[in-house]
């Protein structure tokens, strides 16, 4: 196995770890998974930096299940690009009484710098209408 293939395996493991931390509400793990420069574009088209994103998760969002399909990853020099279709079952503060009643499908893009501990740099979510 080439070093790139090994890095790819590590990358997919990191994504699984990230999804598991989202479902578990493990904010310390999430904090470690993302870069200090992390930026997320959420489905409301709000730009969130690392602390804002963690606050948003703690305050408003609870993931119950995440399924990731059609995962594609490419290495582009110092950066991995991962795109996937994500089906998420979640509850949102103020909606569904905290029950896992909201199902969303997203197209997601992840950015990871392989040279820096596979930290997540950028996520952009677009909901499938």
């Amino acid at each position, binding site marked *: 196995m080439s070093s790139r293939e090994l890095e790819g395996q590590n990358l997919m493991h990191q994504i699984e770890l990230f999804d598991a931390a989202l479902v578990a509400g493990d904010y310390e793990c999430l904090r470690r998974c993302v870069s200090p*420069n992390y*930026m997320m*574009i*959420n*489905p*409301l*088209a*709000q*730009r969130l930096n690392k602390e804002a994103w963690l606050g948003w998760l703690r305050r*408003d*969002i609870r993931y119950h299940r995440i399924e990731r399909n059609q995962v594609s990853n490419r290495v*582009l*020099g*110092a*950066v991995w*690009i991962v*795109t996937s279709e994500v089906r998420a079952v*979640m509850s*949102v503060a103020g*909606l569904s009484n905290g029950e896992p009643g*909201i199902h*969303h*499908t*997203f*197209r997601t*893009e992840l*950015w990871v*710098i392989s040279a820096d501990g596979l930290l997540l*740099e*950028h996520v*952009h*979510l*677009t*909901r*499938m*209408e």
Partner: protein
Amino acid sequence: MTEPGASNQSEGERQLRQLEQRRSDAMDSGDADTLNDVYAEEFQLVHGDGTLDDKRGAIEAARRVPRRVVAKRELSVRIFGDTALLTGPVGLAVTIDAEERTVQVYMTQIARVIEGRWQFIWAQVTLRARAGAAT
């Protein structure tokens, strides 16, 4: 960074901002030739409804649904070697069924150095919040 004819990071950023301006102007004027030039062959676009288009589809969509930028874009540029991330909100006037509507979107674009020059390989759009929308 890997040199696309750029001597440093700020030169790369200048080239990327110029690339985005060319793309934006081409969208405004329906200039398919310029879009064909700024989009790499591998280009893919995620529209605001989550559908995916390839290069040909993206150019056809621009022709089919005319749009123009109505507010100067706040653009953030980050460069990772020969790959770059461009992000920022943009206001667009979109003509659908002969009716012009203004929409606010957030756009992420990825550009790479291909054969010595920057080209877009990916763009993804999310529409600004609508009433009743959640996460």
